[in-house]
């Protein structure tokens, strides 16, 4: 909204962009702090238009459920049943009425499935007609939108891809088609289902990065180069720095790894303690640490070992890959040094210090070879922000590395920097880049200190290509981890099937009106039951068919398998992967899977009525049962309605009566 840059671990930007679009159309200026659950929206927030999109998506899911079952070639009754079940599912309603993304995700999932089914059905009569192309493209677009909203959408995308691959394989086996025709089919599918989603996905990010051009709260996670490309923030500082680092340059060095916190190479007057707590000795030289805040002590000067000056010649002599340099600490003018002394917290690595000449038998070893990691040629110049460099110690071939450990109090709890000599492999914690940079001009120490305190300025703008920014952003999104492993309403996947958990979304500040994410328990139970029945029946039929006993006519068998592949498969791919995930899980993660499960329910019911009820009497009996069951579901819906809409304040007694399961956490005010 305010075009601040932010980063979200759970999903790509499309969903947030869509929400923002709703807000934009409603005239929202983005000036609202979304900080506390239950806070009142102020008057400038167009709640209605912000919530419009999820609600719309949720509403459209109902007719789509109808369409899908119909396109699966089941009866109107079954289709109507599916639509009605989706209609009275409390959890879906709750989720769609609030500004949340699940309902949009479900909408796109269903859309992808529906358009694929339409495609299959038009495949038989009119391939390559206009409507065929339309549905094919729509499948790809809907898939990419689903992925674009939440990464969970990937599962549905893969399912659609899998079904499409099986169909394509049958197509290849179809001998009535010519080779060229088959090739055209395959190419069209590849373009629509592989190329279009990739392009769309890139497009989302492009728009995202174009819109979010200002720096925001999540800047720190990204690399310097990325930050420099955002307006404000680091860009304000780095704009106009000289690009090439030369001998005599004054620089700050940021560690690329950025974990546990982003920090800069730092040193200060204090020395390592003579003896550590555990009895080991140190060199008692000046500490070198990594400091997570901007500080004048973060400045270092790149020095040519052969000369004594600390200023930049004119013209500046750039530093190249493989050159030997010394690093001088700006404020104390001591040289960065490492030697065969164990580091304070990582004893297998070398201590890094700023050398103080104590006149003992420990000569300075302060030569470092510059190793530009992302170089393109072997004589690459060291560039500000862009170059990622390693410092290899000349004497011991140790590499300057951030160990990630916090020093004790004597080191002011800053991060430990060590010389790693054991594994010279690549790791980001060994790589540094220059963030702030200027050419040093002052000869005298006093002037130099003054210079270090003054802000940098100069003019030169620099931009990162879209692809580079995209790949970095994508990588960070996938790797960023939130540590909050527990939440009051978090749950495990096993709780979801039996609806053993709920989420309280909102509680009225004074009355006990409240909104809960709570499903229609009749539908949940019967949907799970339907899945089990489906799987059992499928196994039974498969075994019988293998022995050449066909219970079903061929066309209804194919219908049955396709419905299962899409609905039961959709449930499985959206549910089972959660068992492998380590992040915090909530009940609403189950909703996409649940939607597919609900679609399966009428399919199974119709199948039982058509094929397993032998006489007319049985059939009518079964229909009566289904009607009774449905009215039961309606009754449950009606009972839970106050918790879904949050429109009625209930008395504690009524609330207690609604607490059907021990594990449901319904909020009851103690002092009404």
């Amino acid at each position, binding site marked *: 909204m305010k075009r601040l840059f932010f980063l979200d671990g759970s999903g790509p930007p499309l969903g947030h962009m869509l929400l923002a679009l709703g807000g934009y159309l409603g005239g929202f200026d983005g000036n609202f702090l979304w900080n506390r659950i239950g806070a009142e929206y102020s008057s400038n927030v167009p709640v209605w238009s912000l919530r419009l999109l999820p609600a719309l998506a949720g509403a459209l899911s109902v007719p789509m459920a109808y369409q899908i079952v119909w396109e699966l070639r089941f009866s109107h009754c079954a289709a109507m049943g599916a639509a009605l079940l989706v209609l009275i599912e409390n959890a879906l309603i709750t989720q769609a009425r609030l500004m949340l993304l699940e309902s949009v995700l479900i909408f796109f999932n269903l859309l992808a499935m529906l358009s694929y089914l339409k495609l299959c059905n038009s495949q038989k009569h009119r391939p390559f007609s206009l409507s065929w192309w339309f549905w094919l493209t729509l499948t790809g677009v809907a898939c990419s939108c689903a992925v674009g909203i939440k990464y969970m959408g990937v599962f549905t995308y893969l399912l659609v891809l899998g079904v499409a691959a099986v169909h394509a394989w049958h197509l290849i086996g179809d001998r009535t088609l010519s080779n060229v025709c088959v090739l055209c089919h395959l190419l069209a599918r590849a373009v629509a289902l592989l190329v279009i989603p990739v392009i769309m996905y890139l497009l989302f990010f492009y728009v995202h990065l174009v819109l979010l051009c200002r720096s925001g709260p999540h800047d720190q996670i990204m690399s310097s180069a990325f930050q420099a490309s955002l307006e404000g923030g680091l860009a304000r500082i780095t704009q106009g720095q000289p690009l090439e680092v030369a001998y005599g340059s004054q620089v700050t060095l940021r560690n690329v790894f950025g*974990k546990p916190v982003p920090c800069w190479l730092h040193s200060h007057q204090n020395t390592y303690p003579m003896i550590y707590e555990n009895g080991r000795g140190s060199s008692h030289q000046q500490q070198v640490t990594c400091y997570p805040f901007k500080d004048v002590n973060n400045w270092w000067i790149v020095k040519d070992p052969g000369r004594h000056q600390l200023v930049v010649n004119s013209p500046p002599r750039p530093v190249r890959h493989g050159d030997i340099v010394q690093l001088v600490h700006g404020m104390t003018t001591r040289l960065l040094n490492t030697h065969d002394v164990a580091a304070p*917290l990582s004893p297998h690595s070398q201590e890094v210090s700023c050398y103080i000449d104590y006149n003992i038998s420990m000569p300075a070893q302060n030569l470092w070879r510059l190793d530009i990691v992302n170089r393109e040629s072997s004589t690459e110049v060291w560039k500000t922000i862009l170059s990622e460099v390693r410092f290899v110690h000349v004497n011991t071939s140790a590499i300057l590395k951030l160990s*990630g450990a916090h020093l004790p*109090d004597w080191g002011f709890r800053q991060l430990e920097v060590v010389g790693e000599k054991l594994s010279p492999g*690549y790791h980001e914690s060994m790589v540094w880049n220059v963030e702030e940079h200027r050419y040093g001009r002052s000869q005298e120490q006093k002037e130099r200190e003054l210079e270090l305190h003054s802000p940098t300025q100069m003019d030169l703008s620099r931009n990162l290509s879209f692809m580079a920014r995209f790949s970095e952003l994508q990588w960070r999104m996938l790797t960023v981890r939130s540590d909050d492993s527990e939440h009051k309403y978090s749950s495990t996947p096993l709780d979801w099937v039996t609806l053993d958990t709920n989420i309280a979304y909102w509680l009225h500040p004074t009355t006990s009106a409240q909104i809960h994410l709570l499903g229609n328990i009749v539908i949940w139970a019967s949907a799970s039951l339907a899945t089990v029945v489906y799987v059992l029946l499928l196994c039974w039929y498969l*075994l019988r068919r293998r022995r050449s006993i066909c219970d079903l006519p061929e066309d209804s068998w194919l219908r049955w398998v396709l419905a299962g592949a899409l609905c039961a498969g959709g449930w499985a791919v959206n549910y089972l992967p959660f068992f492998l995930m380590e992040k915090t899980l909530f009940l609403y993660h189950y909703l996409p899977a649940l939607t597919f499960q609900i679609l399966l329910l009428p399919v199974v019911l119709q199948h039982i009525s058509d094929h397993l009820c032998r006489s007319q009497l049985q059939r009518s009996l079964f229909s009566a049962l289904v009607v009774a069951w449905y009215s039961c579901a309606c009754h449950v819906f009606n009972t839970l309605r106050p918790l879904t809409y949050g429109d009625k304040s209930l008395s504690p007694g009524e609330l207690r009566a609604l607490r059907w399961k021990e594990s449901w956490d319904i909020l009851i005010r103690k002092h009404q």
Partner: protein
Amino acid sequence: MLCATSRFLAATALRAQPRGRGPAPRCRRRELHFPGHPELPLCDFLTGQLGRPSVPAGRRAILRRGRMPPAVGGGLAGSELRVRRGRCGSQAARAVGPDVAVEAAARSHKRPAPGSRHFEAAGRWALLALVTLLSFATRFHRLDEPPHICWDETHFGKMGSYYINRTFFFDVHPPLGKFCASLGSLLVPFAYLTVLELSKSLPAALLTAALLTFDTGCLTLSQYILLDPILMFFIMAAMLSMVKYNSCADRPFSAPWWFWLSLTGINLAGALGVKFVGLFIIVQVGWNTISDLWHLFGDLSLSLVTVGKHLTARILCLIVLPLALYTATYAVHFMVLNKSGPGDGFFSSAFQARLSGNNLHNASIPEHLAYGSVITVKNLRMAIGYLHSHRHLYPEGVGARQQQVTTYLHKDYNNLWIIKKHNTNSDPLDPSFPVEFVRHGDIIRLEHKETSRNLHSHYHEAPLTRKHYQVTGYGINGTGDSNDFWRIEVVNRKFGNRIKVLRSRIRFIHLVTGCVLGSSGKVLPKWGWEQLEVTCTPYLKETLNSIWNVEDHINPKLPNISLDVLQPSFPEILLESHMVMIRGNNGLKPKDNEFTSKPWHWPINYQGLRFSGINDTDFRVYLLGNPVVWWLNLLSIALYLLSGSIIAVAMQRGARLPPEVEGLSQVLLRGGGQLLLGWTLHYFPFFLMGRILYFHHYFPAMLFSSMLTGVLWDTLLRLCAWSLASSSLARGIHAVGIVSLLLGAAYSFYLFHPLAYGMVGPLAQDPRSPMAGLRWLESWDF
């Protein structure tokens, strides 16, 4: 060594030549037996006019036979199409003799002279013996160097404590080294036989054997006392016996069939018993069995009873037998290791009760908890440990600066707590007071015995789990404040309100904040001595983390009862030790800023593992695959996927393939497919694992990949040769191709053998080093 290599190559070449020349005249000779088709001169089908449908079956076999690019052994591609008879078990090696088999199948009335058959069989056995010999030679060469213990000791020390059953493996050294090396050497003949069985082609088998023999990585790995050679041995043995019993499929329930089937089961048990990586081969065998059964089930000529027999046999041999063996190893393990050791704390109280030497073994302690009892409190979740406190404060900035409370896995005096009434501080052990039992719902205070501080909690965030409250030790000599009060609750209360030692599962609920005492299982930093964090969680969910039991109990005023009732049953022990192992395994997580080997490094041979020695004066051994072999493997997988999909699409389109090509593509799709499945199963699961990974985890997958390479190159060269048509040229191409691959592997082994046998001298960056030019990748550091 080099001498042996060259001798081997000479032998191969020599063997190849006469055999290569052999078939052509024989073909011509055989033509004479078919005067009915004189218009089909042999040379015609040799030049590629193939696959005439009108040719009778017997004739077609001959055609195929004649068309085979006949280089070394002339592996019979079309053999898959034949009904396989009489080629079971140990006869298989002989049966692969394609000439014999085809002839037998095609024209049973004319058998070749038994002498020649024996000669062929002898040749095959000789080759196998040669391969085995070479493999042993490379593995045993300089086996006793270096004499000091190699490998990352810290790593194995840690592993040792987690995999408790393995501890006794490590302390026996000298005989085990030989044992490992011989198991490692057996891998090569196993691979040879497997490929022979899958592809029916001698050159393919030879190529595979050579790749494995000349791979420095496999060699290094099998020279040291590690679990991996044993694991790989079992994996390969299981694979081999599975392939063998597949080829006996036409003679079900015969003796060899039973033999190979049960051998598969035994090897599976062995593989799983060594390492959990053995699970993957089980998945592979399972998959193979299921598809096998599915085929049998679809075969309408078999009655359901027969299918049922098949199913039972497989259940018996592949499920019941391995499980029995596996449990038996555990039974032995528990019987051998029935002494208390340092790892006790990982296990539950009941488990400890069966370890002699543990204070719970045959112990008798008071049954019900009373005020004044001195107790230790153990978390119910495995590998969390005892509630613990010590004379150290939480550091500045971590909550309130009060005494630390942690959980600790080992037994220690600091684990002792005194249970007291919340409101009085009098000594309840005073004999003048009557005994008062603690009951469910009582408000109590837990005083740390050594430091006399009370278990305390307050509204400060816990050190690691920010949403929980901090738990500290507070107060002086037992006098604290109301934040020291806890309500004790029994979770599994049946009747009575007393609290039983060991058997009651209890929760401590903080009275003021309403939170529950629990352990988050996270390791505290250095200041907490790397013990586990204890928190008070405001979420009242019932997880094992917040449930405790009382383990030790000292109260002189109460009578002791015997604890024999606690003896857990064997399945319980088994289950528990597995839980502990899995947790321990998952616990081996890499820290940030630590170098770890990533799975994508492995197939490209990105980085090796230093076995011993760092500096240039040391005797250095570096575990690194032979790059030529590994990169060839990598290339082969890509090639396989390409050629496999081309063939599959062609077959799905119903293209009419000539019989030779069809035979070859069957080999490629079926045999190669199984090997590819093996590679996939042994490689890709590692991407999902969160634990620390090492380079040597890739080696089982590498075995499969090498076998695939053998099959692929042999088949591709045959296809190539076939498309070039002219028989002599085709033969030549095939022979040259195979021999050059063999030579390449051998030469690269000559180059890289110091990696495995150890090297002294300057590092490879130094131009004076013997390995100077061989540091092909920056990331290799030998």
